[in-house]
């Protein structure tokens, strides 16, 4: 994956930039020793690494504003970083950049149950938002698999989803307001405790903009009362086609489960080994979860299992206890780490119309043969958000390139059948050069116009999202810094 050539003029100004940053931040919040900046050389897309010029760890909105103003004046690119769990390289540095980490901003600022909102600093992890309110019966709904580690800042940047978004929506549907610091240091409040925008929906375009429009330091999030109970049911089928047909029938029947997850045989095996959830061994496993009171759960599961039985399942088992439910979900949420124990892998996340699932899974199987790399599938079946995991050997020369070629072919297929390149992980650098398969030049131009408005010098995370050749004229404008 190509990255822009570091700007030698910026590198030459390193000492001055560091000195100015030390003027506005505590000494331990400015990291410029190459031995220490290496800690920020990559995110969860570990195939690509590059230590930044400097890393800073501001603790307040004011400090973030000072950092950005200085970098703006000095013409230094800034790469914002949440917890560094991006699978798309969203937080990958360039050698001439300042990494702006939000890890020190993790306070809960206000909890308001009457209005069902919580205000947090965005370095707070996803799961600890729920942690702050669950003793009072509330939770924050979006639940990416990395929720133990990932930061709200990154969730907002990537518009993260999760297993339960079939019912509760993704980040953008649960985000009500932000404090945004623009690249020139300007601080703006957008949204808040009320619903919807009075003017243009800036919040909607900021969410999912991959840290290219500003740095979000505080966020108002919607919280909900927890359901009375929840229970997953496991359904095994002898083919992905049958599992896919079952999913469509469940949805058409008017019952909307809170989650419908799919795993193929390879993932069942590695997840079972990892979580000991007693998953049935089969070609295609669905985890379907419903919520409500005991009676409501029973009613919904009766309807769902009746539909499943029409598709001749090879296994059909309701969770018998809260403890078993936890194991079932622990296995699913650990899928990436479980496969990571047995192989290097690249995780894709194209989304397709649900009706195309059997066809696309079959094509992925054929591509696996062609490229000679094994692939496992685990994904959110209810909304068509796939997660093919392509296994490769990072120590084998050329294997990564074959894997990337394979991945690109899968993502192009997703677009061809009416879907998209990424459903919840973001474009980052990983899918940057495929954007032209989904979008025509005018479509990309409209998106880049938004970045022009928020960050005219293209200093915020500039080498992401848009193909380098497409963004090049904007990134190469001579900077004013002397």
């Amino acid at each position, binding site marked *: 994956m190509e990255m822009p050539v570091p700007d030698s003029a910026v590198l030459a100004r390193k000492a001055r930039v560091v000195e100015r940053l030390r003027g506005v931040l505590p000494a331990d919040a400015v990291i410029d020793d190459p031995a220490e900046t290496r800690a920020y050389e990559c995110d969860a897309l570990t195939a690509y690494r590059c230590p930044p010029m400097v890393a800073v760890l501001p603790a307040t909105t004011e400090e973030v504003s000072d950092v950005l103003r200085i970098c703006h004046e000095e013409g230094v690119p800034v790469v914002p970083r949440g917890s560094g769990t991006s699978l798309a390289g969203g937080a990958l540095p360039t050698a001439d950049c300042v990494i702006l980490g939000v890890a020190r901003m993790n306070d809960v600022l206000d909890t308001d149950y009457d209005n069902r909102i919580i205000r947090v600093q965005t370095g707070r992890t996803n799961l600890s938002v729920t942690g702050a309110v669950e003793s009072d019966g509330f939770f924050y709904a979006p639940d990416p698999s990395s929720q133990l580690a990932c930061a709200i800042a990154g969730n907002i940047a990537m518009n993260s989803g999760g297993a339960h978004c079939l019912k509760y929506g993704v980040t953008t549907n649960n985000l009500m307001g932000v404090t945004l610091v623009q690249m020139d240091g300007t601080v*703006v409040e957008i949204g808040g405790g009320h619903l919807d925008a009075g003017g243009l929906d800036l919040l909607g375009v900021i969410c999912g903009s991959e840290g290219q429009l500003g740095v979000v330091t505080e966020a108002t999030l919607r919280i909900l009362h927890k359901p009375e109970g929840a229970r997953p049911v496991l359904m095994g089928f002898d083919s992905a086609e049958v599992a896919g047909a079952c999913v469509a029938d469940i949805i058409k029947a008017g019952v909307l489960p809170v989650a419908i997850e799919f795993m193929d045989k390879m993932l069942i095996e590695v997840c079972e080994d990892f979580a000991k959830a007693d998953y049935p061994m089969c070609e295609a496993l669905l985890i379907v979860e419903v919520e409500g009171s005991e009676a409501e759960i029973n009613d919904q599961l009766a309807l769902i299992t009746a539909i499943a039985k029409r598709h001749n399942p090879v296994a059909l088992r309701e969770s018998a206890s809260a403890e078993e439910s936890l194991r079932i979900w622990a296995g699913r949420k650990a899928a990436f780490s479980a496969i990571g124990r047995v192989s290097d892998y690249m995780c894709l996340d194209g989304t397709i*119309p649900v009706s195309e699932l059997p066809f696309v899974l079959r094509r992925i199987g054929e591509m696996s043969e062609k490229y000679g790399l094994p692939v496992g599938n685990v994904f959110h079946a209810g909304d068509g958000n796939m997660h093919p995991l392509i296994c490769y050997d990072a120590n084998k020369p050329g294997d990564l390139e074959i894997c990337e070629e394979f991945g690109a072919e899968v993502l192009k297929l997703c677009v061809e059948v009416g879907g998209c390149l990424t459903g919840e992980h973001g474009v980052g650098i990983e899918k940057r050069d495929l954007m032209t398969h989904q979008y025509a030049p005018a479509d990309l131009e409209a998106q880049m116009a938004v970045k022009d408005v928020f960050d005219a010098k293209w200093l915020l995370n500039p080498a992401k999202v848009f193909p380098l050749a497409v963004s090049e004229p904007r990134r190469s404008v001579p900077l004013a810094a002397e």
Partner: protein
Amino acid sequence: MKMSTVKTENAVAEAVAAAQGPLVVRAGGTRAVGRPVAGETLDVSGLSGVTLYEPGALTIVAQAGTPLTEIEATLAAENQRLAFEPYDLTGLLGTTGATTIGGILATNASGPRRIQAGAARDFALGVRFVDGAGNIVKNGGRVMKNVTGYDLVKLMCGSWGTLGVLTEVSLKVLPSVEAVTTLVIPGRTPAQAVAAMSAALGSPYEVSGAAWIDGAVWLRLEGFARSVDYRATALQDLLRAHGEVTRDEQADWTRVRDAGPLHRSEAVWRVSVKPGDGPALIATLPEGCDTMMDWGGGLIWVGQSGGDAAATHGTVQGTVAAMGGHATLIKGPDTLRAAVPVFQPESPGVAALSTALRARFDPRGILNPGLMAA
């Protein structure tokens, strides 16, 4: 007034590119809202029809001028619906014509279920539009999860045709429900009403509507019949301290959705604040205003007849500016709409971004110019 009627996306692009002056973009023409715009009317109601509907994938794609009634009939045949419950302004504004799906998204028109299910913008999966230079642009798609590039779909929703002319939209739909019931608590003050609604919305019982109308609290429950019965009983128990709670199987939620009690008011405002701020906003209104609340107190409809509407407008927007939120003059004489900021004035930082975005998407300033902000 000149008027051009177009039937295809390419014709929209040609008409916009060839425009010599301001265009008034319209389809059904049911929403005479905003600062009045003088210009040639661009009628896009000819772009009509459902182009794709996949019930098993919960998605529908339609041309922007498709009447809402046609979308709803198509969905009803498969026992599905638009969950955000779009409102209809014809009764309030005295307009005729057919509400279109493009108009609904362009104005982010969401009804009582917004508080549980989300707004129009939350169900919009993809758009095609023509920008102010005549370029055809697409964003998003027809799948339920999509973070490929920036979300211009949200930006287009609620932009009132000032960033682009919508030509096609794709939407997420949801199953219809088997049963509906409404719990009613009569005779509540605004503060008592918000307390009861907050208790209900903070419960696990999935309240899909929480309104204060004609002095009564209405709480809606929907779903499978047994589940609705169970939750209605549980919620009645929970709310016992808030007054006498009865069940009403006939409650007409379109009155809440379309601000039914205010149809005769000469001036009407639609105000969004934090639910807990609803009663304080109502307390600042002059004598003689009629009010109702939706969204648990977070949406306040204010109606006034015969008073000083310009003064009330200033009071409402001033109060909202201090508490956080926004107030829009939805109905009022043209003279009033021309004289006051119809939409809530934005903070300088936000206004600068909005103005710059409009200048990029509509460089000649010809798409509904001034409708949202002068």
